[in-house]
């Protein structure tokens, strides 16, 4: 791994102290037989090239097309994502309806279902989101471009233990004829956190 990004650090530039500290720690752990370069490469590659929101999107699309799967997913998230080959998380799935909107946060740290959605974006881990999502979720959602009427019940899930939460978004109108794979392509990371809704195909296309 060390060689891949050497060009980011010109030899004349002072190294970020955090980088130096991380390299020193890595070097010591390798010497002690606790780490190796292929561990670093493979762990990083798993999150950079494999796991990501497209995993969760497959789960959502299946739930939209298969009512039995939807019921199993809401009743036992771990077993239901296991049916699609996903795991690594003690998962609870919460469902949006026209009357209920769910939003996920971790105020104490940054807990996130990363084996299903990939690693969280920086904003999810930032003090503004962690602080404000529980106090003023409507104001936060407005910043994300989502204006919900007062009649919608907002449920904020603060992940304070070892359960992880994913939102099952509403299936957008006008998607009745779409196949499962095309539906999955509409589902975004933000919709599964609950800071967005899934847009109909035309709008999703225009947003790209």
């Amino acid at each position: 791994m060390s060689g891949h990004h050497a060009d980011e650090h010109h030899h004349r530039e002072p190294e970020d102290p955090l980088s130096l500290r991380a390299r020193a720690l890595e070097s010591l752990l390798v010497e002690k037989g606790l780490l190796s370069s292929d561990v670093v490469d493979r762990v990083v590659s798993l999150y950079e090239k494999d796991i990501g929101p497209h995993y969760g999107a497959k789960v959502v699309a299946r739930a939209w097309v298969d009512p039995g799967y939807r019921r199993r997913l809401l009743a036992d998230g771990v077993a239901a994502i296991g049916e699609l080959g996903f795991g690594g998380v003690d998962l609870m799935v919460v469902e949006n309806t026209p009357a209920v909107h769910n939003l996920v946060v971790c105020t104490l740290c940054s807990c996130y279902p990363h084996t299903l959605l990939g690693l969280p974006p920086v904003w999810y881990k930032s003090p503004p989101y962690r602080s404000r999502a529980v106090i003023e979720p409507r104001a936060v959602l407005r910043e994300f471009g989502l204006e919900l009427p007062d009649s919608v019940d907002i449920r904020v899930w603060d992940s304070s233990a070892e359960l992880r939460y994913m939102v099952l978004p509403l299936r957008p109108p006008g998607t009745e004829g779409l196949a499962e794979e095309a539906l999955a392509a509409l589902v975004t990371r933000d919709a599964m956190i609950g800071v967005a809704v899934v847009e109909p195909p035309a709008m999703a296309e225009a947003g790209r």
Partner: protein
Amino acid sequence: MHGFGPVERAANEPVFHAEWERRVFAITRAARTHGIYNIDESRRAIEQMEPARYLAASYYERWLASAVTNLIEKGVITRPELEARMTFLAGRPDEAAHGEGPASSQDVPELAERVLAALRGQPNFRRAGAAPKFSAGDRVLTRNVHPRNHTRLPRYARGKLGVIHAVHGSFVFPDTNAHGLGEIPHPLYTVRFDARVLWSSSAEAGHESVFLDLWENYLLPAPEGATL
């Protein structure tokens, strides 16, 4: 805590923002696989950062601080050893990321497999334990406690009335597990709090509630006559 301003977002954010973030992530996952320090000890060490530094630090800076604290506490490395290695590597950006000896840069596929398997494996925090005292629909009052130790009862939800939403069985208890005091499993619940109970007149218009996953010993039965 208030006053953080808007939630700032970046388009097309990379998974990691710097090479050292990749290293810190992998170091932490490997340490977890070896069982050197647990997730509660990891969070406890982050919370022990000096508060101003904690707020200013990036996410992986906190992970790095936690790794250093825990690896030293567990006797895996020493601080002088780390400082000596930093001195040696300073000004050698391409060198010795994988150790100084020729043998130490070798791949260890067996170790990589174990770390990957641990990452993809099912988390293991559920334990056998006592029968839960509360049932769904029961009204509870969270304890108004302010311990110096690690806890997962957020400050904003202390001394508040809520309703048991779900009962989950027993889980490892972070308040002890973070301090080497054992797993001491306790029943875990999801508790619903009305936003007006949490924030009073500062709550937004419209119906809102916050759901928290709380261990039984954070909870008391709601007093007779207490209204939500």
